[in-house]
Every structure is written in structure tokens, then in C-alpha cells.
């Protein structure tokens, strides 16, 4: 008997249903049920989902664990924040400063002229390009330096973590140029449009949701393409892929840059929705927390990353509101549980326990299962 050919179509019917359900939740259920404040909060959670999707591609599919995704999230967020800050620091708004027309924290730190690298951020077009390009160039440099020399695994994780630490120390230390530990705060308008009103926040939530779906579809495309299959092959048997004539480093660099770009979009949307950016979203602790979002969702599942992000952040907010001291215990236990007991996260629980029961109720949908089982993570 011939083995059943595995279909590699861009999206199976099951995937389509999954995306439709997520779209309904994000665009209909949340806006209908949540008041503007909570909706904005969920919008903030969803900006982390951009990072988690990038981590699914890098870590779950490609086997590259980056503990420095906060760096790219932060770079994207800071680029956006610099533009908004310059707009908020017009000479009229800052007339009481000793040097009007520069951001307030520069004035506090006795800086009298705008540094040259802040100048281009007066332009919205430049900023929108920089939000993506700056983090991607940065991740490209890291990627080339590391992957060309075949550094991977835990070494890569440690070095990316060190980079996150360095950037945080740098931002905090150079407070005249970066706003220091408080970050860039008091952001008001985007091209004259006030981003602090409830209407603006609701609109930004939908823009954020739209961008999230663009990113989800790109991720889905990469996952189902030949590149996605090569990444899985590299994760499991890197040498064999190399001996088959593929340049392993190039694929890794590409996927790492893509993850960086996703994180940067999330960071920029974070700044717009929350109204500030600070080093507390750049360093080691937030970066490794972002990994747990992807892990809880299921490290191989793109949609799972979104659910995982929402779940962990919702739990974090609820716990820290009522039992702040329990939250770290809970988060710590989550890290351990997701590694020891549920390596495939929510997506794994879904496909092992919920889906088989659904299949019994609705047998027609079963024919897609073959494709998904072929890519299951080996539990080594």
C-alpha cells in the first residue's frame, strides 16, 4: 500500500476554520464584550502575540531559541515613540523648558540640541520604515555573525540574552538621549490625531488586529512553504540538510530577521496603544516571558501563540490585581509545567483531547489530520 501523499496546501479547511474563529474573537467578541479600557488592555496583549508568532517560527519550527526578542520589540517601539515624542515636543508645547522644542527628558538632562540621530524621526514616513528596518538590520547582523559560524542552541540563547541586557543597560544609562528608566512617556498625537481618546484607542485596536492577521498569514505561508519544511528538517537533523546542499545559515538568518520584524511591528503598535515605551519591555525578563507565551500556546502552533499570549497575560493581570505574590509562583510553575508536562502547549491539548471528540461528532473533517501529524515535534 502506498503511503498517503501529504498535502502541502497553504491552508487546509481546518486551518481556515481556526483562523475564522480567531478573527471572530478578535474583531467581534472582544469589541462587543469589553469596555474601551479592557479592549485597550487586550490590544496590548495582542502586541505581544506578534513576538510569540515570530518565536513559533524561530524556536518551534526552526529550533532557534532567541531570548532577546524584547530587543526587537523595544527597537520597533522606541522608533515609534521617538516620532510621537518629537511631535509632542513642539516649541509651543515645551515653551517652559530652557531649550524649547526638544523632548522634556533631554531638557532635564541639560541637553540643548536634538541629537542628529533623532532628527530623521521628525518624518512619519521615515519612522514607519525605521520601525521595521532598524530591528531587521540589527537581527541580520546578529544572525550573520552567529549562524555563519554555526553557533546555535544554548549559545545562541545566551548571547541573545546578553544583547538584551546590554541594550537595557545602555538605554537606562543614556537617559539624556533615551529617557532612561522611565522610557519615552507622555505621547499625545500621531500626525495631529490624538491617540489618547477612547475612539482612537478602539480604532488602533482594530488596526492592530488587522496587522496581526497579516503577520499570521505570512507566518502560515512560511510554515507551509518549502522553507517551513526545511526549517523543521534543520531543527531535527541540521547536518543532513547541510549535506543535501542547502545553506543552513541563510535560512536561519531569514527566519530570525522575520521574527525580529514581527516583534518590531508589535512594539510599534504597543507604543501607539499604550502611549509610552520603556526599557522594562526590552530586557531579559520580558524577553524570556515572551517565550512562555509561545510555549503555552504550543511552540509549533501559530494560532496557539495568539491564544497563549492572551491567556498568560490575562492571568498575569488578574493575578497581579488580586494576589500579587502568587503571580511569580504561578508563572514559575507555568514554565516548569509547559516543559515537563505539556511540551505542545494548548495546541497539543486541543489536538489530543478536544479534537478527537469533535471528530467523532463531525466525521467529515478528519481527512486533514494526516498533514498535521507529519509535522509533530519529536518529543526527544
Amino acid at each position, binding site marked *: 500500500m502506498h503511503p498517503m501523499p501529504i498535502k502541502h496546501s497553504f491552508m487546509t479547511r481546518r486551518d481556515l476554520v481556526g483562523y475564522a474563529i480567531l478573527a471572530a474573537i478578535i474583531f467581534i467578541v472582544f469589541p462587543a464584550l469589553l469596555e474601551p479600557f479592557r479592549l485597550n488592555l487586550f490590544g496590548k496583549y495582542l502586541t505581544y502575540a506578534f513576538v510569540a508568532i515570530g518565536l513559533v517560527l524561530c524556536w518551534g519550527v526552526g529550533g532557534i531559541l532567541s531570548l532577546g526578542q524584547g530587543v526587537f520589540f523595544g527597537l520597533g517601539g522606541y522608533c515609534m515613540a521617538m516620532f510621537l515624542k518629537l511631535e509632542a515636543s513642539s516649541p509651543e508645547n515645551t515653551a517652559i523648558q530652557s531649550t524649547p522644542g526638544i523632548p522634556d527628558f533631554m531638557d532635564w538632562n541639560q541637553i540643548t540640541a536634538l541629537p542628529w540621530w533623532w532628527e530623521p524621526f521628525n518624518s512619519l514616513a521615515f519612522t514607519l520604515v525605521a520601525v521595521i528596518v532598524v530591528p531587521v538590520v540589527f537581527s541580520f547582523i546578529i544572525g550573520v555573525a552567529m549562524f555563519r*559560524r554555526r553557533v546555535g542552541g*544554548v549559545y545562541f540563547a545566551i548571547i541573545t540574552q546578553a544583547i538584551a541586557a546590554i541594550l537595557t543597560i545602555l538605554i537606562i*544609562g543614556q537617559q539624556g538621549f533615551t529617557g532612561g528608566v522611565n522610557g519615552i512617556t507622555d505621547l499625545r498625537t500621531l500626525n495631529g490625531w490624538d491617540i489618547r481618546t477612547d475612539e482612537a484607542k478602539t480604532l488602533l485596536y482594530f488596526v492592530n488586529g488587522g496587522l496581526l492577521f497579516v503577520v499570521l498569514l505570512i507566518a502560515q505561508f512560511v510554515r507551509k512553504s518549502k522553507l517551513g519544511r526545511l526549517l523543521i528538517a534543520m531543527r531535527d537533523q541540521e547536518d543532513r540538510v547541510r549535506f543535501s546542499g542547502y545553506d543552513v545559515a541563510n535560512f536561519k538568518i531569514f527566519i530570525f530577521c522575520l521574527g525580529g520584524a514581527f516583534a518590531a511591528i508589535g512594539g510599534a503598535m504597543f507604543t501607539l496603544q499604550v502611549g509610552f515605551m520603556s526599557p522594562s519591555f526590552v530586557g*531579559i525578563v520580558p524577553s524570556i516571558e515572551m517565550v512562555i507565551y509561545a510555549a503555552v500556546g504550543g511552540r509549533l502552533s501559530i494560532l496557539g501563540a495568539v491564544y497563549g499570549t492572551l491567556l498568560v497575560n490575562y492571568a498575569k493581570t488578574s493575578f497581579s490585581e488580586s494576589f500579587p505574590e502568587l503571580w*511569580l509562583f504561578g508563572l514559575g510553575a507555568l514554565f*516548569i509545567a*509547559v516543559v*515537563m508536562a505539556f511540551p505542545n502547549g494548548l495546541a497539543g491539548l486541543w489536538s489530543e483531547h478536544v479534537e478527537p471528540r469533535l471528530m467523532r461528532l463531525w466525521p467529515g473533517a478528519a481527512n486533514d489530520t494526516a498533514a498535521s501529524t507529519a509535522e509533530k515535534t519529536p518529543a526527544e
Partner: protein
Amino acid sequence: MFADYSTSDLIAIFAMQGFAGLILFSVFVLMALGLAIIFGQMGVINMAHGEFMILGAYVTYLMSNLFSAYMPALFSMYFFVAMAVAFVAAGALGMLVEWALIRHLYKRPLDTLLATWGLSLILQQTYRTVFGAREVGVSIPDWMMGSLPITDLIEVPINGIFVMVLAISISVGVYVMMYRSGWGKQVRAINNNRQMADAVGINTAWTDRMTFAIGCGVAGVAGSAFTMIGSTGPTSGQLYIVDTFLVVVFGGAGSLLGTIASAFSISQAQSIMEFFLSGSMAKVLTLLTVVGILMLRPQGLFSLKLRK
């Protein structure tokens, strides 16, 4: 940048900063030794390493309170007892952790990293619940206070010398254990080839557990020594973890000499730069240099020639 200082000033600055660097070096060595055993020899990433050190520091704090309350006559010697207790406490916790977590994850290093990070969060919150969020300090016995004047411009603190002596003796101890004892031979054999080591009759499970426990115990002693220099808070351990890993990776994992050499170069670079730049910039430049060198030479300063 040197123009404002006279020659004798400069010599004194370099000597004092150099000595401050030596203390930092001893601290780095103490921190890194435990990790050099766990990460360098076993290949396990223990992100909770800092919390094991803090455990040692808290044990020392408890012992100092205990001695000053019940045995004030012996107070001047409490520190040696505290170090021994710190070693046993951190080692016992290490054994427990190895049994409960690590042994299931030897083949999944990235997952070990996440699980031990979770462990570190739990330990931090435990410390906060038990000892409070504020930093605690120990009372130092009289003989460790003060400083030795060497010339009229240069003075060296006694607790610094003590930490240095401690770092040297523990390094020697670890060296003897890893390279001159039968047990060390077993550890290295397992690291090279687990199946063969198993086949020739080495009890790999037990050796792993002991190695991990000893690495954690050394971390506990390091934490105990830290109380001589600074105060301890629930999150102090997290501050050290990146430095510690960089020291071990920069030196070349698996090479004890490399770890010591890299601790030396990183600490000297940082403390000499600290005098001329702000502390944070000195740290940024040092870490950037280390990361830069690691990108050019990923195997670290000293690496064993291995055929893979």
C-alpha cells in the same frame, strides 16, 4: 583623558582600580565556578544559578543572626560555619532539583533553560515571602573590617583580600576535584560519551546528581562570600546571571583555566573603564566587547580540541 592626572596619581588609580578589579574578579570566579561545573562539564543550563547563590547568602544571614543571638563568643568565626552550611543547603536543594527536573531534560537543553528559569522565579518569590522584599546585610566580624595601607595613596580592604583567598582556594579545590580525582574522571567521561560511560560501569545517574549538587553547593559558598561585599535581596541573583554565563562561555565551556582567564579579563576591563566612564557605559562596553569577540570566536578563549 589622562592629561589631568600626574604620574603618581595615575599609578595609584590603576593600582586601586586594579585591586577593585581583583575583587570583582574573585566574585566572578566564585560565581562562575559552580556554573563551569554544571554548564561546562554537564552541559546543563541552570538559569536558577543566581538563586542558588542567593540561598547561600541568606543562609549566611541566618547564621550571623543565630551566632550573634546565641553564641556571641564564637561570632568572629561564624563565617566559616556559614559557608559550610551554605554549601550543604545549596547542594541539597541542587540534588532535589536534579532529581525532580533536570534528569528528565538532559536531551533537551533549551527546555532545561526554560524550566530552570521557572524555578528561579519560584525561588525568588519564596525568598521574598520568607525574608521580605528589602535587602538584608550581615554583620561582619571585626577582624574583617578596615583596610591595609600599602603606600600612602593605596589601601586595600581586608574583606576584599578574604574573598580573593576564598576564590583561589575554591578554584584549586574544583580543579583537584575535576582533573585529579576519580570522580572528576567519571564526570568528564560522561560528558564525552554517556553511553560508553554507562557501559563501562559508571553510575551515570548518580554522578550527574552529585555533579549538579556540587555545582550548586559551590554557588552557595559564592553567595555566602557575597555577603562580605554587599547586601542581599530576593532578586540579586538575577542581576548576576548574564555576567556569569558570559564569563563561562567567553572562557570556553569545559575549560576551567579559560573560565578563570575570562573572569580576569572581563573584571579588569570593567573596573578600569569604570573610573573613566560612567559605570553603566563601562559595563556596556565590556559586555559588547565580550559579545563581539564571541561572535568572532564562538568557541571562547580556551577550547578543547574536539572531534564532533
